[in-house]
């Protein structure tokens, strides 16, 4: 077994697929695009790697957090500095949160992914309150959904 630093550059987030077969590591290199590295947890070999492009008009694509759904080990949900995206292997589903019509998500921290919904934390609360602002988005085979 290796450390995340030995596998990915500037690792920011890690998540296991629900069946434990893959470990995804998201890194934010100082000079370059955010990168996802997928490790097979049997061989501990990197078997897939891809870059997450920056959204139009945004400086970087930095990864904030990641989540995996319960029923698809090859699917990864990523929140970046500006958006929420779903990948099947290294293929981006058509609708990210911005394309689905949601306002830009800045630093949205993903907490959990169920079969149809992604749960997250917007990272702020109303004045004079404690706790956090729980949010959720629906998703389907095309990506983030408004239904």
């Amino acid at each position: 077994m290796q450390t995340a630093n030995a596998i990915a550059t500037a690792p920011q987030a890690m998540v296991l697929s629900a069946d434990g077969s893959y470990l995804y590591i998201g890194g934010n290199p100082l000079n370059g695009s955010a990168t996802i590295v997928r490790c097979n947890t049997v061989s501990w070999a990197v078997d897939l790697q891809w870059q997450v492009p920056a959204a139009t008009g945004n400086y970087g694509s930095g990864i904030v957090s990641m989540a995996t759904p319960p029923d698809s080990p090859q699917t990864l949900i990523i929140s970046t500095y500006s958006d929420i995206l779903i990948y099947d292997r290294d293929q981006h589903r058509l609708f990210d949160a911005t394309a689905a019509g949601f306002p830009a998500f800045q630093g949205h921290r993903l907490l959990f992914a169920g079969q149809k919904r992604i749960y997250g934390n917007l990272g702020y609360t109303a004045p004079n309150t404690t706790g956090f602002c729980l949010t959720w988005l629906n998703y389907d085979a095309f990506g983030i959904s408004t239904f």
Partner: protein
Amino acid sequence: MPPEVQDDHGVTYVSDGVRNYVFSMPSPELLPFNSQVAYAADPANRQAWEIIPSGYQTQLFQYNMDSQQLLFKTQVSYPYYSSPGVLYPAGNGAVLLVQENSVLLIP
């Protein structure tokens, strides 16, 4: 709240049948936002846990989801550059406390 979010005797969590994520549970104190509090629950064994940082100590509390009693379990130090840790139910009523330099199984 979506229907898969459950409130079970004060423990609010979402589950996909295998994994769960705890959003909140009773605490010994009013917790400020963004404190590095972490939760875990094992609904089958009717237990939930939370860790609350205090200085560079992690305080672990256990909550019985039937009797609704919150108990202080233990206190573990953690490095100043690190986080207080993450909890994983062990599935037998115990919990794993994972910190940067240690993994503790706490019965």
